[in-house]
């Protein structure tokens, strides 16, 4: 069942977009000890994801990245990509999508959030922060 996507997985442009999209979702907060997802091995994760999930899911992730990256075109009606906006505006745009009345659009954001969460929540630094104060698990989190 696990098909593979042809070799042109994410192009250079798509990688830049992916970076902006996932950074918008998981930007981190330095004061809280939460790193940005871009400090993790995002591209290694995405490449591995392509090998792991069924082809249709990999394509859905790719489509979602492109869709969200280009969404300022129809959310702000400006000829910009998400990558070219500052964090506050990016978040406004993606929040619009995440709360869209159109179910399919919400789902695209959810797919990315789900995939990003698998990477983000697994990071040792993030876990240390999340488990903070628990004697067993904060030490446990490798």
């Amino acid at each position, binding site marked *: 069942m696990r098909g593979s996507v042809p070799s042109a997985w994410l192009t250079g442009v798509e990688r830049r977009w992916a970076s902006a999209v996932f950074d*918008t979702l998981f930007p981190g*907060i330095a004061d809280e000890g939460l790193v940005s997802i871009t400090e993790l091995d995002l591209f290694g994760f995405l490449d591995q994801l392509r090998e792991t999930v069924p082809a249709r899911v990999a394509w859905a992730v790719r489509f979602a990245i492109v869709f969200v990256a280009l969404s300022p075109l129809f959310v702000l009606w400006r000829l910009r990509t998400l990558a070219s906006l500052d964090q506050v505006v990016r978040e406004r745009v993606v929040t619009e999508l995440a709360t869209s009345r159109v179910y399919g659009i919400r789902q695209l954001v959810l797919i990315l959030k789900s995939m990003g969460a698998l990477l983000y929540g697994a990071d040792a630094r993030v876990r240390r922060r999340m488990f903070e104060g628990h004697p067993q698990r904060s030490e446990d989190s490798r």
Partner: protein
Amino acid sequence: MNQSFPDEDLPEGAVVDGMALGRPFDDSYDFVVVGSGAAGAVAAHTLAESGASVALVEEGPWVKTRDFGDRVYDAFRGMYRDAGTQVLEGDSYIPLIQGACVGGSTVMNSAIAWRPPEEVLVDWQRRFGLGDVASMKVLEPHFDALEAALGARGVQDEVLGENNRIFLEQAEKQGISAVRTRRYERGCRGSGRCMTGCPTAAKQGMNVSYVPWALRLGARIFTSCRVDRVVIVSGRAVGIVARAKGGHPVHLRARRGVLVAASAVQTPNLLRRSGLRARDLGEHFQAHPGLGMGGVFDRPVHMEFGATQGADIEQFRTSDGIKLETISMPPELAAVRIPGIGRELMNRLAVFSNLAVWALIVRSDSEGRVTTGWGGRDKVVFSLSKRDLERVRGGMARLASLFFDAGALEVWPGVFGIPSALTSADQVKLLEDAPLDARAFSFIATHLFGTARMGPERKGREGSVVGLDFQTHEAERLYVVDSSVFPTNLGVNPQHTIMALARLASVRVLEA
């Protein structure tokens, strides 16, 4: 300390790893069992105990206790079907979670053990004609044996954890009868890691219980071998054809029968690939769609410590069609369910320690269908009815009230159209009026039923695929022993009923 686990030191030759298989394989046994989850493992063990020769064939690999980590993505990749990306397709997309490894879904489940409600069995007898198969008297010895073998017991004090404790305490204050969850475990340490595999083999999943026990009785397991079809000659099942992950074909002859236990999703398509054409095959799919809700307290809850699921309320099952439970979510899954994106999400992740997650499962009356989708994949079409959604929002309102009464500062319901954070009990009303639209909720499905249901008649209004002897109406010596045969869902967690019926089925197959 070098602790050894039950999935180690297995008898020589008992495990044939399809990944490493260097040649086509051909062999004969009395019985071939397809699938090593709750149903298949128990069936294989019961058959092997009688002295019969048994081959157990499992599509997924055997991930050993020693190799379990605590990262969800690694578990998804190694042990979950389609890496955890299956969905029910209908009015909305509902994640469908199943194991695909030795032990099946019992490797990542919470090991909750509930006997089936009496009225469900009565319904199976009256409406579907299941006779003594659905008699508690007949099933009781099987439940007793399973409970003794797997150490079913209520969660112990030292591993209760705050998430479970607050739930129990609050229910008691409100006069609601909540119980400590009975689970199959021996020495649970409360790591809250059931979803990524129990790192100490305390949880009595099939991978550390009935599968190794069957192998020690002489059974053999073929891992990483997907059964393509059951071979049926002159109306009688005589073996299976599988493909090992390494590419080689595996032909196993079955002198006395083939028992299919590939789960309510895979079983109907396997039967179709084997040539069965019953009208009801793949129909009547049912589930217990579930959803979780977060509550933030002013003090640490540390959901990461405690039995993964340690408390439940069954009281509203018949009146409201719901069962309430606690569930400790690993950070990766919590991060999906925590509302918001960007800094809003980050701020909420920062209070993860204070988060409790409680959940509900609904005894849905909707029926769906399993078909073969594009590329041969298993496609499940399922939508919740309006009545189901009414039950869900009622259940969510109850959970939110419990949270607020327990002192939660915020409740995160995760319902589209409702504020992402409720901050007072007055807002619970919003949940009661939530949209009756499945797309507004974040469901998940892990309890699966129907699709090759049992009954005395092949045709008719309550048509069936499998007879009361667990044998398909279409092919002799082809038995179905998983929850595909259930005429309805249960309203409680199904593993116990699945195992008891699989045990009963195997005893009857031996007697046949």
